[in-house]
């Protein structure tokens, strides 16, 4: 049977893509951010996941306002990255796992999560930057992937509780998959930041800190807030923490933090990183 080996949550700021391309890891601005990753690299080298199920939000690469799914899932043999208009390097195609995708789709729709299914899906920086951070310089990607895209572009957004429960449903579906696979679940985005409006530059260290502390043992804490309340607390793009909640839901059960990092600022963003494993209750 497939098994979830852990959950990783990380920010996906586009500027990271530029910093990787320019090899700025030891630059004073970037070092506190990139220095968070080696412990996660060591964990990945030990656990060697076969598949990554990745919760992310599209920023206007694959989806436009003509058709905007609340929850979408990839079911493609591979996913292509493409030009997003502002010039970060495009990464090579990422392999999919369509058989696992369809297993998840069957289980999710049977469980009342009516997913939009995508046999072609361009993946943007929110999907590719975390891969580049987690498996640096690998050239060929060492994992197959299943992208799960959650709308954070157009309100109404799904609630924090709904995203958490989507994650739980995906976690259960993964663990009912008959193939012996090691699966890592990844949530990308956040933490607090706001790009738009007179309130641009808003960052909330106190909220982020509590969110990261609560996520392993008390993930429902954040679900007490409506999404607009989360926008007020974390900034308009801070609501990307919905991806973290979904990944935490997928991990399931009791969990513990093995490693975390938090740094302000990366571009306009409070950058967070967590590695969680399930802990026997």
């Amino acid at each position: 049977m497939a098994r979830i080996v852990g959950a990783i949550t990380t920010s996906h700021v586009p500027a990271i893509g530029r910093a990787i391309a320019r090899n700025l890891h030891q630059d004073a601005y970037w070092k506190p951010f990139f220095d968070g990753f080696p412990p996660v690299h060591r964990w990945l080298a030990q656990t060697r996941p076969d598949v990554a199920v990745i919760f992310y939000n599209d920023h206007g690469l694959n989806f436009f306002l003509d058709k905007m799914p609340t929850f979408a899932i990839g079911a493609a043999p591979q996913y292509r990255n493409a030009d997003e208009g502002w010039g970060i390097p495009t990464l090579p195609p990422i392999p999919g796992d369509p058989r696992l995708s369809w297993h998840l789709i069957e289980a999710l729709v049977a469980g009342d999560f009516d997913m939009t299914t995508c046999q072609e899906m361009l993946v943007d920086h929110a999907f590719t930057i975390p891969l580049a951070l987690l498996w640096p310089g690998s050239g060929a990607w060492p994992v197959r992937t299943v992208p799960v895209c959650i709308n954070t572009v157009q309100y109404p957004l799904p609630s924090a509780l709904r995203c958490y429960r989507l994650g739980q449903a995906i976690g259960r579906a993964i663990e009912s998959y008959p193939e012996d696979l090691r699966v890592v679940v990844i949530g990308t985005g956040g933490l607090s930041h706001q790009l738009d409006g007179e309130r641009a530059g808003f960052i909330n260290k106190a909220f982020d800190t509590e969110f990261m502390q609560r996520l392993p043992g008390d993930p429902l804490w954040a679900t007490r807030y409506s999404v607009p309340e989360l926008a007020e607390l974390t900034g308009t793009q801070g609501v990307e923490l919905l991806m973290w909640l979904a990944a935490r839901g997928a991990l399931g059960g009791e969990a513990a933090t093995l490693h975390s990092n938090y740094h302000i600022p990366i571009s306009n963003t409070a950058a967070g990183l967590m590695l969680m494993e399930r802990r026997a209750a």
Partner: protein
Amino acid sequence: MRRQLPDIPGTTLFDGAQAMKGYALNKMCYSFNSAENREAFLRDEDAYCARYGLNAGQREAVRRRNVLEMIAAGGNVYYLAKLAGILGLDVQDLGAQQTGMTRDAFVAKLAAAGR
């Protein structure tokens, strides 16, 4: 029925009303995923905006490179970022412009949030 969104100072949540109002502007910005379209915009901005049917307010906001006006006209920051890319503006430039700060002051404000 539309749920009333809370009034967050200096913030416009992009709901159905904004999405309808800004459709043409956002659709134009979405087209900037293509290098060919970015070049076409730079070659003849008037013709490109006309092709996407921007209304007078949207056209003027783009002409003035004014992000707050683009948001007021229904622009969504994820799409507007692609226009900003053409204009050589990054998110610190956008933040500075929208808050009326210098770029240096805006960058300092971000750093101060970490202390």
